[in-house]
């Protein structure tokens, strides 16, 4: 194995190191050093990840790239093993990018415990990158669990009035799921005669019963993260209480870890069980699309509405995966990246309003376009992307999932395509009530349009959303070889 420059270690540990530094610089009286250090750290973290994209070999098929391997706990054969393929690499870049945005977005908004706030985000960013890059089950588990802590703190410390309830709900929900995953790892460790290598698990033949049990154990962990219906109720609560930055990372990145888990663990480790349970997974996904779409329609709190919208969109991801065809999986993966941009943008937009009016209620607004025309233009753009308008990234993923669904079963496609109507209905109805109309109240009349900092992150995200919608080929090119290999792998039975 060629051990080149350890880029993956860099993108994992650089943000964490900066996070620790920011913690050391934290000072409530003078937050500037912490802020600038955090900005530098987040940008460096993103820049460090760019070679992953530029140096990514499309010819490598589904093989892992940029691998790093070193013994960690030799006694149990636990290794520090990192590597990325076409599934994880884009997610690492997405995460590093979002960290930069979150740091920019916090600037004038968070004024209490600034250093600690930023440190939590930087450390979490590194841990998430580690989660995506880990190829050793225990390493994965450690990152996966450790990541909960900063998010728990972000919600619990900088959150809204009901933050403690939301934080505990978030923590318990996600922790309970992952304990079963650990049990599955220990089982697989025994079955492979002492290996924690995820790629070894991929090759391990298992009986159907074992596959189903492993699948379900991991399902509990990942389904909560996605979140899939009916274990989704922690998400709206968490979003409502989380500060804007927390919501951005939660929606844009942490949800993706659950979906990523299905691709990295469930499907390749238990392919026969995955096929057997595909109907179950698809049903849950479609319930998410339709049921949650309807629930989103009646939300009166903007953040809750976007949270439900996220669940519905993530339903597309899991639907796409369990169609077991190239269009579906590609659609799901693209939807993951796209939803990262769009949900982040939507939450940041709500954040922009919240910072001025201090309300998330739709009814507290009306006619925002009169006083914030530039903001309104961005908000409408992102709303359209959220409704899956072509030429925005939101369309690409949904389109391919629907294309994949038609191949499998018309009714899957039929139910999935209802999102064209529901997605537009709940998003644009919110736009109508918030952005359009006469100036509704003195708060709206007093609104000031976006400042340069806000313009910067909104414009960045708008560029991403449009670029990915107009030219998604580079993303698909990176993902396709891995998808093909994955599908080949899961088509072959590995029953023992």
């Amino acid at each position, binding site marked *: 194995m060629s051990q080149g420059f350890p880029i993956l270690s860099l993108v994992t540990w650089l943000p964490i190191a900066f996070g620790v530094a920011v913690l050391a610089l934290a000072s409530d009286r003078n937050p500037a050093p912490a802020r600038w250090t955090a900005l530098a750290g987040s940008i460096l973290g993103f820049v460090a990840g760019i070679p992953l994209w530029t140096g990514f070999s499309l010819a490598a098929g589904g093989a892992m790239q940029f691998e790093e391997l070193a013994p960690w706990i030799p006694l149990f054969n636990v290794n520090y093993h990192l590597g990325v393929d076409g599934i994880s690499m884009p997610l690492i870049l997405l995460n590093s990018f979002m960290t930069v945005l979150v740091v920019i977005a916090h600037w004038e908004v968070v004024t209490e415990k600034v250093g600690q706030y930023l440190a939590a985000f930087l450390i979490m960013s590194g841990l998430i990158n580690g989660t995506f890059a880990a190829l050793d089950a225990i390493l994965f588990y450690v990152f996966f669990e450790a990541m909960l802590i900063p998010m728990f703190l972000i919600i619990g410390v900088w959150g809204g009035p009901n933050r403690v309830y939301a934080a505990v*709900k978030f923590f318990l*929900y996600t922790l309970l799921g992952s304990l079963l995953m650990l049990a599955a790892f220990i089982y697989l460790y*025994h079955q492979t005669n002492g290996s924690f290598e995820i790629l070894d698990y991929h090759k391990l033949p298992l009986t159907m019963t074992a596959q189903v049990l492993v699948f379900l154990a991991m399902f509990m962990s990942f389904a909560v993260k996605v979140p899939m219906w*009916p274990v*989704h*109720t922690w998400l709206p609560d968490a979003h409502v209480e989380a500060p804007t930055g927390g919501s951005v990372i939660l929606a844009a990145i942490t949800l993706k870890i659950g979906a990523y888990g299905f691709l990295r663990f469930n499907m390749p480790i238990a392919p026969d069980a995955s096929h057997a349970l595909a109907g179950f997974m698809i049903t849950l996904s479609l319930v998410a699309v339709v*049921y949650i779409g*309807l*629930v*989103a*329609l*009646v*939300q009166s709190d903007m953040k809750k509405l976007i949270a439900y919208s996220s669940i519905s969109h993530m339903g597309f991801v899991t639907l796409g995966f369990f169609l077991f065809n*190239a*269009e579906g999986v*590609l659609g799901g993966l693209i939807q993951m990246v796209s939803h990262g941009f769009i949900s982040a943008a939507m939450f940041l937009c709500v954040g922009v309003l919240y910072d001025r009016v201090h309300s998330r209620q739709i009814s507290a607004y009306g*006619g925002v*376009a*009169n006083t914030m025309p530039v903001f309104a233009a961005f908000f*409408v753009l992102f709303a*359209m992307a959220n409704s899956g*308008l*072509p*030429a925005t990234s939101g*369309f*690409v993923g949904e*389109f391919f999932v*629907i*294309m994949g*669904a*038609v*191949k499998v079963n*018309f*009714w899957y*496609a*039929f139910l999935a*395509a*209802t999102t*064209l*109507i*529901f997605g*537009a*209905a709940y998003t*644009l*109805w919110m736009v*109508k009530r918030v*952005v*359009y*109309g*006469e100036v509704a109240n003195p708060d709206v009349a007093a609104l000031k349009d976006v400042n340069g900092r806000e313009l910067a992150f909104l414009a960045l995200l708008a560029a991403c959303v449009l670029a990915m919608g107009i*030219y*998604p*080929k580079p993303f*698909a*090119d990176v993902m*396709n070889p891995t998808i*093909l290999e994955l599908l080949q792998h899961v088509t072959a039975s590995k029953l023992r």
Partner: protein
Amino acid sequence: MDLMTLATVAAFAPLAGAALAGLLGWKLGRAFAHTVTIASVAISFLASLAILGDVAAGQSLSAPLYTWIAGDGWSIHVGFLVDRLTAVMMLVVTFVSLMVHVYTIGYMADDPGYQRFFSYISLFTFSMLMLVMADNFLQLFFGWEAVGLVSYLLIGFWFKRPTAIYANLKAFLVNRVGDFGFLLGIGFVFAAFGTLDYAAVFRAAPDFAGTVVEIVPGADWSLLTVICVGLFIGAMGKSAQFPLHVWLPDSMEGPTPISALIHAATMVTAGIFMVARMSPLFELSQAALSMVIVVGAVTAFFMALVAIVQVDIKRVVAYSTLSQLGYMTMALGAAAYPIAIFHLMTHAFFKAVLFLGAGSVIIALHHEQDMRKMGGLRKYLPWTYATVLIGAIANAGLPPFSGFFSKESIIEALHLSQTPGAGFAYLLALGGVFVGAFYTFRLVFFAFHGKERFRDAHGHAHAAAEEPGHEEFHGTPHESPWVVTLPLVLLAIPSVVIGWWAIQPMLYGGWFGSSIASTATMAEMAKLFHGAGAMVLHAFGTLPFWLDVAGVALAAYLYLVRPDLPAVIKAKSGVLATILERKYGFDDFNDWFFAGGARALGEGLAKWGDRTIIDGIMVNGTARLVGWFAGVARRVQTGYVYHYAFTMIIGVFALLTLWLYHARI
């Protein structure tokens, strides 16, 4: 320049104009915004003219611009297909758009959103061109949704008005219902053909003529029928066909120039164009054509009836548009695709005239749209009157104006068509001729002739929607400035002559060549055609002509001779008038059933599903269960170290046993 360059310039010039006006307009001012957009659309128009010349000379183009996405064995491009069908559409779109751009200078002169408006209409022109120039289904869908987006933005242009932002949301959602079918249709195309390129799909389509799919268990449906029905549902949304027509009348909340451009001349005809483009597929599905012809017939006749009772000048024209779109759809169903496109073209000109003429009246009366407050305007607005009269004659289908040729051809095609349902459509089409002539001339006589009701101070029936800046009007109306009347005149000219001039080459001269499937109906029609002159002469002896005359005569009697009668008739017709005024109750039903139903369902799921069952029973129930367990476990936690130590030893012992047991196997 070669065709590719011309096509690229034609498509992207308006995008550049829109971007410049949108991003810099606020800084560089109004003159900049209208200059740059008009220049860009003019360039696009000239390029389209050049393209028309090239394709007339036999050239065509089908080339990718770039690869949008690619996968294992398939790829989807963004590219241009420029053939004779495309060239006609491009010319119509860019010409009407150019006229509307010029007109807007006058119409929107006092509006604070001037630059934004120009940016939007140029963006619309770009989107519409991408739609008609697409060489694959995906790009078609791109253009399809993009024009929908711009339509949404423009209907809600005056975003302070509750009615406007209700109308634009409604328009978008109803269109999304259509798109739902459209996307599933595209899904079937991709699943079956493995490609989205028109050429490849059309080539392979005959091989799939016998393929069936089982959507409902036990029923085998033809794959191509399923595809065509899906695509046509999309067309029903965009081209406002019954029962997805409900958004179009409300779209009149938008400023009048876009009513002319988007909601009459171009965007709403996208569905018609699409079906004509897909004619190789529709030709293979008799069942789909049958659906098309029936939907078109219902739309053509029943929407015309609603136009009779409208008092808002724009809404009369809007219902007229619905009816005319129904005629185009019937022509498609009759497998007379070239005639549908022919009517699309003539309609684009005369309907734009009617809308822009109505707009000219509206500004002359300081944003009054209610015809009950007009009357006698012909003396004050001579240019507007003359052009509206031309538009009306064409709209009613009186010879020898353009509408006559296209409408008469449609009726003839329905007569000859073998599509099941053609007889039904023929009858409704004839009925529609009478009604159409009546409502069109009712508008002319009501608004331009008779008593000058705009001088009355009373009669404040504010039933009609009013554009902002409305104030009670008491003075003498003045003819609109030249930027308004010039486009009217330039659009009125083709409204008169284009039918006479184009019918022979376009329908029977093989103009469309291979760009539209050739059909038996068209072959039959060709046998009966002996030139435009003969067609006019022949018309005087046919039923449609006399139905037309009867309609005009009735309008003249009711609105010129006995203007007191309409009110009496309305009072006596009771339920019928109410049904028409309520537009058959569709809006009420949709608001109650779909909008209300979805909200009620959402509330129910949120309350019972999420809060009661999931959070209440499952989550908090688990928490209580854990609490109970903790209560039990608390008794174990005695606080004595030796208890813990003992427990640990037991645990270690158990684990060791387990490990040894495993090691042995």
